[in-house]
């Protein structure tokens, strides 16, 4: 009887098969690395890249449900809105700060008192300002009122306990003595309303648009800027139209000189 000794022969054959396989791998790998060094890295990396990306997504928390993403989106939008509102508030405060600095820089060397404009044309009627200081701040009728840049714009017409009414020199019918142009020609400014003045000068006095109009004080404070000159050859006088260098519709702060009273 003959017995098959399969086991004895099989094990070495497996080892030799593995050795052969390893040899093939080594030879194949060496050849590939010699001719195409990036073949294996490119191939394996391409296969693995999606897994790496998924892992990164998990780490970054981007693998979330649409509901969670929408919730996050809404939360971030709310935060953005809050931030925008805060930014606008900051910008407003910065503007106010700059205005106050401009005013107080001047006021620090003068006895002027700062007052906020509560109402101004056109919301306030009669072409006047309502400011937030009155008797309590020592204001009285006739006190001069200045805008930013030391521009004389009006006088206190009525001082109440905590508010005052300021009559603008540009109000219709108001009159104020000024000096116009480079020759400082004296004239009387007549208010036309809406922050506009007019004055009459002899025709031979040269005045042009852009010339400054000063008030009669020793400081030569700016009162207005000539906008246009209307000349009629038939008339001996020309009409000079001018406006204050500040926009009275945008006034937020004014300075009041409680010592000077012009009635």
């Amino acid at each position, binding site marked *: 009887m003959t017995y098959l000794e399969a086991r*004895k022969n099989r*094990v*070495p054959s*497996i*080892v030799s*098969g*593995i*050795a052969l*396989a*390893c040899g093939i*791998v*080594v030879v194949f*790998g060496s050849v590939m*690395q010699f001719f195409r*060094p990036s073949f*294996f*890295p490119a*191939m*394996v*990396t391409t296969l*693995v890249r999606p*897994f*790496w990306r998924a892992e990164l997504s998990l780490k970054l928390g981007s693998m979330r449900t649409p509901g969670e993403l929408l919730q996050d989106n809404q939360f971030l939008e709310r935060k953005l809105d809050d931030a925008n509102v805060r930014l606008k508030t900051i910008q407003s405060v910065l503007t106010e700060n700059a205005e106050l600095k401009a005013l107080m820089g001047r006021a620090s060397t003068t006895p002027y008192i700062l007052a906020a404009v509560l109402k101004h044309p056109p919301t306030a009627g009669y072409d006047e300002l309502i400011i937030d200081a009155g008797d309590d701040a020592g204001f009285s009728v006739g006190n001069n009122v200045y805008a930013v840049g030391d521009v004389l714009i009006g006088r206190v017409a009525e001082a109440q306990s905590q508010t005052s009414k300021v009559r603008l020199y540009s109000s219709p019918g108001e009159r104020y003595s000024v000096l116009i142009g480079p020759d400082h020609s004296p004239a009387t400014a007549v208010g036309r309303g809406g922050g506009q003045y007019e004055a009459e000068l002899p025709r031979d006095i040269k005045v042009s648009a852009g010339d400054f109009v000063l008030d009669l004080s020793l400081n030569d404070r700016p009162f207005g800027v000539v906008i246009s000159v209307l000349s009629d050859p038939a008339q001996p006088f020309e009409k000079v139209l001018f406006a204050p260098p500040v926009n009275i519709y945008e006034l937020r702060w004014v300075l009041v000189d409680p010592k000077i009273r012009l009635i």
Partner: protein
Amino acid sequence: MKHKLFVRIIIDIVLVFLVIQGWWFVALPIGLIGGWFFPFYAEILLAGIAYDSLFGMVPGMGFSGYLGTIVSIVVLLIVSGSKSLVRR
């Protein structure tokens, strides 16, 4: 037989995960165990090549860039040889 195949697939998946993570020194003992229990465990060889392809095989590294492949070949030969000696 089916149970053994199932375990082998599980170990292969673990091996792939470990290689992708770059944990070669964790993958190696797993491959060694696989090589001991399963016949012709060529997965360790593929794991070595994959590991080197992902993290090695950089020009200028020389043979150290092929350490995964070399180690896996050595391990596979040693385990297969040991198995043949022990089970003779």
